[in-house]
């Protein structure tokens, strides 16, 4: 009859251990949330598989379906691994690694039979979640990871509950408390824990489709870039911010032209900057650049630049190269000298020929035009350049992001037929014309401008600020910058790309781009605020690396020795523990001091205990006295007297106590006397 009411026994092998419902719901939630940020990086079939596995898991929980058989699981896991490896073509690199991890994570759900398995899945969730930091370290990622972290911890707590149904709020509350408590320690560890170099080098070259300058430039490339509102870098200035027309952020130099595409000068052929040929000039700008990952080695600077705070090389082309391609955000300090002169003394032969390179044949009309024009200007480079710029200005050239497509002879078609182009068209054609009359020139790629931020002294440089201009080597002057775009659209130089095109082509491809909504004042302000928070995060947290840590240690310790670092970390850890201990102590003040009668009575109990009569915790004094008197009949009188005294002191009304010693009128005094008597008796009490 009893059995009829009981639920049928759960078959552990088929349906797993009886997990609390709350824990199960939380577990499903964290499965989804841990994998969510990776969705772009894993093959689509894996997301489908993920959905199926979750469905299966739910059915198992509802005891509708059993766990899959061992063989099916084996096939699924091996198939999953093979699929990931096939998809990425490698087992190395973070993408493939995360893919394999997620596969294992996914199929572990299908054998979550015991509580231990469930804990393993929870631990794996932490791990899968943490791998997101391999790809992004932004503030928003961190906030997301933090929130999911609370959920994962809550799952772990919920799994430990024995009741089948608990309110979801309870584990969440405990988890939130735990995570919040761990924050101070986390901060200390983040800033101070010695950063040991990785034991293995993780190849973070993820070949993502990053938006940004490329090492080759065809007509229209920069125009494409100009449609992106993404941030390229921030520059935080000490002192004056240069005016817009001086904000020529240099990335690299393009020296080779094949008739259609310009190629960036190869990193390997670049020799270090010749310091002897460099004159600094008077003015200088000091700033720090926070550069978003580019997958290139170029560090954006205003020439001529001295870079510190990062391992970098200043090159002959006045560009600065990092040691390796930048797959994560970096920051570095720069001192720039805007009035520099370089290579006034002359170019070496190799450079001379490099900056005069032209493809054999093609664009004949342009070459012809250049030669005629040069002759007409008396073969004077300065006057020739002047005439070219005036030509750009006077003729019907249009500055647009939507130039027509150009055919084989790009320069000819641009200069004499379409006359519609963007900066790369104007600068490219300009360099071509100069080179065809034997004047060394090169195309420079980078960014022009940057948006000032009202809250901080820093500039925001976006991808749409990408720009190309020309540099010409002139006898006696060295390299001189000319920006042919300025001759066509002066606004581009003075104010930036917004509204400087002569048609509405700017940013036409992203209708939701914040740049479009710039005119709404409130929105613009919100956008800048968001960026400011992002900037602070990046400046203070995401860009904190070994270098920054060393700086911090130097500031804090003076001389950096392992002992001092250990002392600092240990000291701070101790301080945190001390604060926690104090707060616990203050929140739970120690219980009232033990009453004197209690103390005496406990001593009496101790004496009896030594004789083998121990009082149990829940044994009342009277019961204990009876038992003790039975065991030690010789002391029965003493035991009863002491117990009676104690009971009267503790439990009897005051009148009764007074009655106990009738000669005392003052009850307080009586209590004292009683206590004294108890003390004497307890002291004298010697059970044998």
């Amino acid at each position: 009859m009893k059995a009829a009411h009981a639920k049928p026994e759960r078959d552990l092998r088929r349906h797993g251990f009886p997990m609390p419902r709350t824990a199960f719901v939380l577990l499903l939630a964290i499965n989804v949330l841990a994998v969510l940020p990776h969705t772009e990086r894993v093959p689509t079939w894996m997301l489908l598989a993920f959905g199926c596995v979750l469905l299966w898991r739910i059915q198992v929980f509802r005891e509708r379906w059993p766990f899959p058989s061992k063989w099916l699981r084996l096939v699924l896991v091996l198939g999953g691994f093979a699929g990931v490896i096939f998809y990425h073509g490698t087992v190395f690199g973070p993408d493939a690694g995360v893919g394999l991890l997620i596969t294992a994570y996914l199929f572990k759900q299908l054998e979550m039979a015991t509580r231990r398995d469930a804990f393993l899945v929870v631990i794996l969730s932490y791990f899968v979640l943490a791998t997101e930091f391999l790809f992004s370290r932004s503030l928003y990622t961190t906030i997301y990871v933090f929130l999911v972290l609370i959920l994962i911890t809550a799952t772990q707590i919920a799994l430990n509950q024995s009741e089948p149904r608990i309110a979801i709020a309870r584990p969440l509350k405990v988890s939130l408390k735990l995570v919040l408590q761990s924050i101070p320690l986390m901060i200390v560890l983040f800033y101070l824990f010695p950063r040991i170099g990785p034991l293995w080098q993780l190849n973070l070259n993820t070949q993502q489709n990053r938006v940004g300058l490329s090492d080759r430039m065809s007509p229209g490339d920069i125009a494409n870039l100009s449609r992106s509102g993404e941030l390229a870098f921030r520059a935080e200035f000490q002192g004056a911010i240069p005016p817009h027309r001086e904000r020529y952020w240099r990335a690299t130099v393009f020296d080779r032209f094949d008739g259609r595409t310009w190629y960036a000068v190869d990193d390997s052929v670049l020799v270090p900057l010749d310091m002897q040929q460099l004159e600094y000039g008077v003015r200088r700008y000091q700033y720090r650049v926070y550069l978003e990952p580019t997958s290139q080695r170029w560090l954006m600077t205003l020439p001529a630049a001295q870079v510190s705070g990062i391992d970098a090389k200043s090159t002959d082309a006045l560009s600065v190269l990092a040691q390796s391609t930048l797959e994560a955000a970096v920051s570095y300090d720069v001192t720039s000298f805007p009035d520099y002169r370089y290579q006034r003394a002359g170019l070496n032969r190799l450079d001379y020929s490099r900056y005069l390179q032209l493809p054999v044949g093609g664009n004949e009309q342009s070459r012809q035009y250049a030669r005629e024009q040069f002759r007409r200007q008396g073969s004077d480079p300065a006057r020739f350049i002047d005439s070219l710029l005036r030509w750009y200005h006077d003729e019907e050239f249009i500055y647009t992001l939507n130039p027509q497509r150009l055919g084989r002879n790009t320069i000819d078609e641009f200069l004499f037929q379409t006359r519609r182009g963007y900066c790369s068209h104007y600068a490219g054609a300009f360099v071509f014309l100069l080179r065809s009359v034997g004047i060394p020139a090169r195309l420079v790629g980078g960014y022009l401008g940057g948006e000032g931020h009202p809250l901080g002294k820093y500039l925001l440089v976006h991808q749409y600020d990408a720009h190309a201009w020309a540099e010409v080597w002139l006898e006696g002057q060295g390299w001189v910058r000319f920006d042919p775009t300025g001759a066509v659209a002066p606004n581009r130089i003075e104010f930036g790309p917004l509204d400087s095109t002569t048609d509405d082509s700017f940013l036409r491809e992203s209708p939701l781009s914040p740049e479009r909504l710039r005119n709404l004042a409130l929105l613009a302000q919100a956008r800048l605020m968001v960026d400011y928070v992002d900037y602070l995060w990046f400046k203070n947290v995401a860009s904190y690396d070994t270098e920054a840590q060393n700086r911090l240690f130097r500031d804090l310790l003076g001389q950096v020795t392992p002992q001092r670092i250990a002392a600092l970390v240990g000291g701070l850890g101790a301080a945190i523990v001390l604060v926690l201990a104090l707060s616990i102590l203050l929140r739970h003040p120690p219980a009232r001091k033990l009453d004197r009668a209690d103390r005496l009575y406990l001593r009496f109990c101790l004496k009896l205990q030594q004789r083998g009569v121990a009082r149990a915790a829940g044994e009342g004094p009277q019961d204990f006295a009876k038992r003790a008197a039975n065991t030690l009949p010789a002391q029965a009188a003493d035991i009863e007297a002491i117990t009676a005294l104690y009971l009267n002191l503790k439990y009897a009304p005051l009148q009764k106590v007074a009655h106990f010693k009738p000669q005392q009128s003052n009850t307080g005094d009586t209590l004292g006397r009683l206590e004294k008597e108890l003390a004497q008796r307890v002291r004298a009490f010697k059970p044998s």
Partner: protein
Amino acid sequence: MSQPIIERLVKAVGAILLGKEPQIRLAIACLLAKGHLLLEDLPGMGKTTLSHALARVLGLSYQRIQFTSDLLPADIIGTSIFNPGSSHFEFRKGPVFAEVLLADEINRATPKTQGALLEAMEERQVTVEGHSYALPQPFFVIATQNPVTQMGTFPLPESQLDRFLMRISLGYPDPRIERELLKGSNPRDLLESVQAVLTKDELSTLQKKVDAIHVSDALLDYVQRILAYTRQSNQFVFGLSPRAGMALVKSARSFAMVQGRDHVIPEDVQAVLGPVAEHRLSGARDITGHEGERLVDHVIKHVDVIPRR
């Protein structure tokens, strides 16, 4: 002064129900604390005998209702009957209008009928058709019930169990007493010979005296430690309520008086803790509602009488 009376009470009841002095003392303590009493045991253990004996010894008018599954609320409270003489409806008072009401096998009646009785116990008055009728003073309910694991019963819910100050089980008599029982005549026959020991005035004086029994701070500390323990330990679904705490102190006072003391000591609390708390506690894995006993032992064992810190 009050002590001889109480001892006489105990003796008089003890003459009928042999060998159950501790339970008799608890039952008397319960009634002196103005509490209702629930006697729970298997049939034939002397529940009815004890309740009869108590009623007679206290010298109060008493009524007995045998609860059955078809008993209706009106059978307890009374009904309005049309009087042809006065051509009015007259209220005929039911058995509940007695000073001592013996509700035999209370768990055999339907919840509706149980509810009517338990409401009367709480309010100490009965309302029928808009008229309130006060119940006599004093008013005690001594209910008996069989353990709920027996078939065909309606177990009382926790909220209604709470109306009873104490729940007492009698248990099997020890062999020596049982032999005497087997030799002698049926105790129920002796009931007739029992004389009232108290007058109504004496009873109300005794009840007033309960409140004068001294409870020291040290004792309240102990009671609070017990309450806190039931609330914090994971052995219980829920801890003891403040009302249960008040019932505990009141019962301990009354029991101390029955024991002839003018102040309460921890042993009094321990003695009444079972009867007072068992039916109000249920264990974390308790299905039958009868784990209270084991839990109370657990509480007594683990809560220190003397503060350690």
